């Protein structure tokens, strides 16, 4: 059902556009893509998103843990956390556009503390991170639901035992919850990545339209531009084939590494958050990562 159109689509990517419609052009479209600085920006933004992935998984994971452990008001949180997820990205984008506008309330608040205004969505170095952050905010509710279901397989006796031993919250999370939920974590990793790479169009369209200076292009947005605005369907097809291959490789790597990890954690021991196993992260590339990730790396080195 989905594979046959996929073959047609990939086949299409080797043909020409416009006057060359229908004729085979070999790898011409792919060469053009890699020569296009915009497409290269889109690819490096994919790298950035993959780096942000651990954060996007950790947030719903932690919140789900709190709800599971019945922090005060957990019923209330359970209800409101899902709310952003049901809103259309266009509305979410519009809301954040207002908040982050140059003359918007965020800058006004900062201004009252004497901080000079920041052009949040107008600065090419900031905009991508901001949009990704808004995406995480808008979608963590979905992962939260998955995590909550995952807790059903958690052995409550183990949890009680750990608490009786006087384990701190951090220890409980590390030694009990993460090993038990390794499959759920794996699932959330893979689906969060897919969400980031294939469903940010709405936000990008409303918040930045790929700008400023083309800094917030993602393959998905690039495909839309080529297909709809530039009338280059075959080139768009080639770009989406590349997107498919990237997701396939990164996704299967995640599954494989997390699987291996999951099996090893059958033996009690410090597992760390499984995130560090990601190829991009182990490459030690991002010193801009949040402190939590560095902590996890240290844990892994110790393991």
């Amino acid at each position: 059902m989905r594979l046959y159109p996929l073959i047609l689509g990939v086949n299409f990517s080797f043909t020409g556009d416009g006057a060359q419609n229908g004729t085979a052009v070999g790898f011409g479209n792919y060469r053009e893509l890699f020569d296009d600085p915009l497409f290269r920006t889109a690819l490096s933004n994919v790298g950035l998103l993959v780096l942000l992935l651990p954060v996007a998984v950790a947030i719903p994971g932690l919140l789900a843990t709190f709800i599971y452990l019945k922090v005060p008001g957990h019923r209330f949180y359970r209800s409101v956390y899902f709310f952003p997820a049901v809103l259309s990205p266009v509305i979410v984008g519009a809301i954040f556009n207002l908040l982050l506008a140059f003359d918007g309330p965020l800058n006004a608040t900062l201004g009252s503390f004497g901080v000079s205004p920041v052009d949040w969505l107008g600065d090419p170095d900031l905009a991508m991170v901001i949009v990704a952050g808004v995406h995480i905010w808008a979608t963590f509710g979905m992962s939260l639901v998955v995590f909550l279901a995952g807790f059903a397989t958690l052995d409550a006796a183990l949890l009680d035992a750990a608490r009786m031993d006087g384990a701190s919250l951090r220890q409980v999370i590390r030694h009990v919850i993460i090993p038990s939920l390794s499959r759920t974590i794996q699932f959330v990793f893979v689906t969060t990545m897919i969400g980031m790479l294939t469903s940010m169009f709405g936000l990008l369209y409303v918040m930045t339209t790929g700008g400023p200076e083309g800094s917030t292009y993602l393959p998905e947005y690039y495909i839309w531009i080529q297909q709809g605005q530039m009338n280059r369907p075959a080139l768009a097809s080639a770009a989406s084939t590349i997107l498919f291959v990237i997701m396939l490789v990164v996704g299967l790597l995640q599954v494989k590494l997390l699987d291996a990890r999951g099996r090893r954690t059958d033996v009690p021991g410090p597992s760390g958050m499984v995130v560090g196993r990601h190829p991009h992260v182990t490459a030690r590339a991002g010193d801009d990562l949040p402190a939590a990730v560095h902590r996890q790396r240290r844990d892994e080195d110790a393991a």
Partner: protein
Amino acid sequence: MRQRAMWSAVLVVGLALAGCGSASDSGKATSSDSKLVVWDWKSGEAFAKSYLDKAKADFKKKHPDVTVEFVAQPFDQYYTLLGAAIQAGKGPDVMLFNGGGQIRDRVDALVPITDYVAEDKQRLAGWEAFTKDGKVYAGPVTLQGYPIYYNKEVYRKAGLDPATPAATWDKFVADCAAIAKAGAKCFALGNKEGVGIQFWISSLGSTTLTPQEYDAWIAGKRDWNSANVKRLFQTWKEAGDKKMNSDGANSTAMFNDSFAYFQSGKAAHVMGLMSDVGHWKDFNEFLTPEQLGVMKAPVVTAGTTPSMPYDGGIGYAVAKWTKDPKVAADLVRSLTSADALKAFYADAGAIAADTTIDVSQGGPAVSTIVGELKSGKPALHVALSSKTIDLMGRLSQQLLSGSITVDEVVKQLAASDQAG
């Protein structure tokens, strides 16, 4: 046992698929011969109602047995969907297009309607944007142009005479300094989509380029190294450097944050539109006709005369797979009939392609605009390819943020223009 589970699963899938297959026969769309499907992105909006009613009534007179269905598509996916329909070889009979690149890139899927619309040739303006290689592919509905609007109230506050806005660029810059003292910005600028620069070069084109350079640009012979072409981008940069624009222009949407900024009186000028949004009627909700002015472009290069830049805005075209192109073309003619366009002008405020419409009731701004159309010329940016326009948008943002020079900008644009 395991096999049985497998088989039962397979069976269920099979049944589900079969169920879908058989059910589909009954639900098959009734594609009778006497139905025309029209795609656009306007018919869902309230202002389009009386326009469509008039057009439908006109068409009904000619073809009482043909039904017409309008399908409003969301604009952001319009050309993507149209592309899919073209690829699949199945789609609407009549469709709406933006003039310029969007229709010219897709003429392979369209029928030339030159002969069918011959009678309308005189009555309507803006054909050029829908013409390729001498053949007409769509009937124009609106005209799109880029007048400079100004707020007379802000002028008064700044101690300037609202009746005589600056005629030269230097005077204009000086006026802007006075406006800044009065606490307002000179321009409401939204360049998030990179559209600001398009309006800029088109609004100031006639007073920056010499008439020869202008005509050559439109004809496709663009000399990117000429001093005047560079000047187009230098004034853009100058306005940014002198803080004449509203703050955070690169993160402000042209549609419609910058227009809202102008309407609320925080900026004295805006380079607006004649149709769709950001035009005289749109502004009239906040600025009375007496407060809203339209000015001629200030002269940047001595010896030039300002003229209004405009082209065909939107127009309806006929798909090549339609059964009877004559009937479809008749629908296009109904959609561009005098009565229908009059309704479009009255409700949407758009400057319609029919130049015989009486606009004297609309206030001074609209009269000025329509009066200028006679001496108007095609807009500079419409002549560029989609790819070059896209690049220009990004470069203009870099000019505002100061990370590129004007020389580098024209160099990159020249390369893109020659490749395309």
